[in-house]
């Protein structure tokens, strides 16, 4: 398969869809409509082939062997780091491969909270995914560090005035999501970065929901750390990324200890390896890391600006169509990233999802791993979520809107 030629263009979605073998699948005897890419996106053939190709031709451990295979796998794995670095405008040493966003955030929580004192404070927001709440919450208890949550406005945006009011001389860390996985809100991370840096506070961006859909530039945002997962951006599961400014990564201590992250070991002491390997203990997911590099190539070949533009139109179309339904309640602002969460009448999201599933439509239903937001801010027990990617089409959205009638019919509405 050839990569696409990237230049400013309308996406040839029919052609792009052929790159994704799973999209040809039937689901419950209906043509699959995959609307759950915010949970995990699908892999193009070129990524799937790279995993197969690695195991068939190059499989060896990295940074260890003297033999040719080890040299190849090491080169390929390191090259993937460089591709990811270029993708977000970072340097090679600043890219650490992790298992996923969650692991990257755990790494930060462990390594950064280590240096915090009792009564120090950190700031999160009410719209965080559990992965950007639970690691901080649990470790903060041990260190007696206080967590403050930035409120979400009625419209579903971050309340920046509240954020500013939470900052004081004890605030050490601000960790905020770039795009809400439930509300779709695109947070002004550049502005938040300025607010935090004015007071020398470390600023962490959870980019899991933004990286797949828009151009993200860590230097432009001036993020101290930025984390994301491969499996939401056309790569396989098991690989994620921690970006950190070099000066900060050099300062903080590793989270996992073991092989490959060392330079010299005696029975008493260890000198840690250079960046980024200081943070990559043990044999990493090599094939997955390489596949992430291939996914980045693939996304680049389509062009992140093109993806963003196409998805924006598609999301606006979905938003408009859902807004026309009198019995649908939508959560979050109108200007949003590529997802829409909603509820239909009083019908439980699980029931909506089950009936849509019987029509071949895969959506997410539940609390989206943002339980405090759903229960305590939106006052719901669950929501339905449609999340789009550049391989989705208006025709699929039309079919989904029609399928809502079937849901209504089953429940006699």
């Amino acid at each position, binding site marked *: 398969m050839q990569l696409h030629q990237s230049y400013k263009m309308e996406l040839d979605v029919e052609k792009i869809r052929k790159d994704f073998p799973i999209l040809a699948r039937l689901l419950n005897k209906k043509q699959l409509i995959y609307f759950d890419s915010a949970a995990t996106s699908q892999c193009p053939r070129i990524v799937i082939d790279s995993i197969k190709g690695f195991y068939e031709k190059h499989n060896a451990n990295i940074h260890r062997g003297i033999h040719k295979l080890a040299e190849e796998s090491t080169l390929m794995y390191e090259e993937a780091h460089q591709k990811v670095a270029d993708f977000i405008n970072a340097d090679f040493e600043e890219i650490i491969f992790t298992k996923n966003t969650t692991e990257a955030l755990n790494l930060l929580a462990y390594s950064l909270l280590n240096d915090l004192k009792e009564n120090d404070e950190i700031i999160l927001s009410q719209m965080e995914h559990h992965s950007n709440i639970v690691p901080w919450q649990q470790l903060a208890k041990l260190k007696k560090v206080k967590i403050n949550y930035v409120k979400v406005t009625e419209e579903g945006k971050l309340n920046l005035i509240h954020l500013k009011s939470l900052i004081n001389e004890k605030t050490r860390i601000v960790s905020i999501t770039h795009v809400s996985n439930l509300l779709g809100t695109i947070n002004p991370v550049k502005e938040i970065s300025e607010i935090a840096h004015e007071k020398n506070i470390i600023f962490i961006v959870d980019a899991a929901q933004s990286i797949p859909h828009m151009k993200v530039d860590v230097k432009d945002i001036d993020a101290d750390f930025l984390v994301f997962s491969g499996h939401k951006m056309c790569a396989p599961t098991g690989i994620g990324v921690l970006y950190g400014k070099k000066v900060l990564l050099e300062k903080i201590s590793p989270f996992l200890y073991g092989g490959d992250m060392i330079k010299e070991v005696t029975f008493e002491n260890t000198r840690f390896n250079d960046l980024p390997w200081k943070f990559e203990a043990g044999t990493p997911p090599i094939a997955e890391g390489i596949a992430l590099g291939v996914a980045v190539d693939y996304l680049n070949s389509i062009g992140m600006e093109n993806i963003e533009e196409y998805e924006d139109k598609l999301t606006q179309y979905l938003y408009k169509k859902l807004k026309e339904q009198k019995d649908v309640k939508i959560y979050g602002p109108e200007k949003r990233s590529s997802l829409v969460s909603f509820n239909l009448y009083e019908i439980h999201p*699980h029931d909506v999802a089950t009936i849509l599933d019987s029509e071949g439509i895969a959506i997410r239903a539940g609390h989206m791993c943002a339980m405090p937001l759903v*229960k305590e801010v939106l006052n719901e027990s669950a929501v339905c979520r449609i999340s789009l990617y550049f391989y989705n089409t208006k025709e699929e959205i039309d079919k989904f809107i029609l399928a809502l009638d079937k849901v209504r019919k089953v429940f006699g509405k």
Partner: protein
Amino acid sequence: MTQNQIIDRDYAGEGIYRENIIDHYKSPRNFGILENSDAEYMEFNPLCGDEATMQIKIKDNLIKDIKFKGKGCAISMASCSILTEKIKGKSLNEVKKLEKEQVYEMLSIPISPQRVKCALLSWETLRRLIKIYENKNG
């Protein structure tokens, strides 16, 4: 299971929403609050946010009365309604022996792996409720 078996497995789809289920969902039996209950328990399904609270009144080892309240999908709420209806008047020993499979039978719909927790919310609540009652009453 091989991959093909997973894909080709008979699919129930919206067929789980049989008339009986929708009926119990829309007009749940034993829905409400029991005054002076002998035991009470609230169970929560973190996967989908469903919750059910059950209360019982026991006399001479018989379930004299049972009521539930809750919020959830059609399957979990219908399951609470059907189960409470079935066990009312039964002996504590009988109810203790109740197996998961019997709950599936009561629902008489095919339950996919993703909906097991919904279907069994009632059974889990009841099981723990009875334990609480027994702990209280030796």
